[in-house]
């Protein structure tokens, strides 16, 4: 089953930032409930946008969200001290967003992860920057998987983000990621593939049709999770429909349920 990480609780979104500043719990609770109803499996919580206030903002968001949802949260911060606090605050084993091969990030995140009960998003980024080829992505992913397994993480808890890049600046960027994902899944069938999709359409008009179509291709290649806006009903419909077409929806039950509840429309 495809896992949706709802991206909306992020203080870089104006309305969320305003809600955090005004301590408007109602707005946050309402948003989380909507994401849950729309089919999110995790709620990403990012409090990084108000520089200097990340700790208090994260604390307030978690205190606000914690009591009203049984869904696991995705704790989104580059700062292990904040993640440590957040980890102690959540009821369920969270997802952590994220580690990468950038030396500073890697060296501070590895001790944090050791012995923790959590899932981890691992970005195929290193100190040289974004990956430049399929092989580059595959190599970085394998390194991350090996290192994470070495500190006791299960493959099933590892979510590789291959880093989708804009097709507008290089028409081979779609194929590059698709090929890499196929290979990573072949070598590590238990590992998950996740990430944002909207980078693919950067610099082009009518972005959502590009994002949706790319998602379908990525799911065929082995992507089984994504960081998206669950309130975008068209992308959620594309996910359910693709799940069915790829054989993971017995008797098309989920698809039909989606149609009857008006979530899926042609």
């Amino acid at each position: 089953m495809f896992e949706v990480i709802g991206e909306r609780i992020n203080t870089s979104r104006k309305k969320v930032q305003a809600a955090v500043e005004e301590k408007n719990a109602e707005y946050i609770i309402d948003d989380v409930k909507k994401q849950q109803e729309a089919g999110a499996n995790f709620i990403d919580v990012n409090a990084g946008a108000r520089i200097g206030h990340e700790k208090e903002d994260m604390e307030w968001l978690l205190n606000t969200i914690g009591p009203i949802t049984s869904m696991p949260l995705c704790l989104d911060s580059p700062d292990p001290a904040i993640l440590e606090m957040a980890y102690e605050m959540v009821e369920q084993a969270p997802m952590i967003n994220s580690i990468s091969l950038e030396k500073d990030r890697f060296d501070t995140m590895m001790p944090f992860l050791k012995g923790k009960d959590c899932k981890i998003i691992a970005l195929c980024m290193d100190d040289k920057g974004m990956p430049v080829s399929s092989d580059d992505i595959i190599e970085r992913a394998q390194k991350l998987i090996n290192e994470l397994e070495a500190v006791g993480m299960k493959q099933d808890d590892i979510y590789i983000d291959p880093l989708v890049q804009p097709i507008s600046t290089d028409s081979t960027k779609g194929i590059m990621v698709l090929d890499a994902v196929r290979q990573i899944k072949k070598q590590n069938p238990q590992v998950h593939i996740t990430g944002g999709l909207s980078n693919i359409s950067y610099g082009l008009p009518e972005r959502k049709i590009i994002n949706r179509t790319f998602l379908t291709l990525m799911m065929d290649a082995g992507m089984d999770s994504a960081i998206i806006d669950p309130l975008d009903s068209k992308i959620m419909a594309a996910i359910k429909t693709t799940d069915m077409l790829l054989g993971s929806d017995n008797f098309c039950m989920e698809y039909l349920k989606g149609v009857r509840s008006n979530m899926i429309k042609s």
Partner: protein
Amino acid sequence: MTDFNKIQETLVNLDAEGVIQLVNDAVKEGTPASDILNKGLIAGMDIVGEKMENEDMFIPEVLMAAQTMSQGVEILKPLLGEDDTSAKGSVIIGTVKGDLHDIGKNLVAMMMESAGLTVHNLGVDIAPEEFVKQIKEKNANLLCMSALLTTTMPMMKQTIDAVVESGLRDQIKIMVGGAPVTQGFADDIGADAMAPDAGSAAKKAKAIAG
């Protein structure tokens, strides 16, 4: 008599063969290479930049226009003197320390080059002291910084502080950009300008440093 509008129009229409033909014709007619460059190709790219700003043209088209322009420039190169572009600005551009994003920054650099500015693209993960060193070495009059992460935005402020400390602030204008960067943030950290896209970045660069 060379029709510069025709060159501009042909470039904006992404007709590479047409542009090359027109540039060759203009050279044969004896039109000065600097005029073909400034009034034809660079003026054409200015239109492309504006269209990009207004979302009438998109990144792949802008890249194609820039490629076409550089083919035209190749024809003109042997005929051009040192001082033949109308824009005199010397630009230092880079992504700040701790940040490895370069796609948007490279587009900005490309549009500035196409606008006739001399661009020194330092790359990504550039420390404040390296920016300062390069400003001195290249005798630049415009510094452009990019940051794509809320976590690396403060590095723009630190870089500006380093420029102030080095005593170079008076000789250089500073422009910032990147997805999370707002005009308010640019004002707060003491930048001279903020550009939301590559088209407007090139236009602003010419206005404040050209």
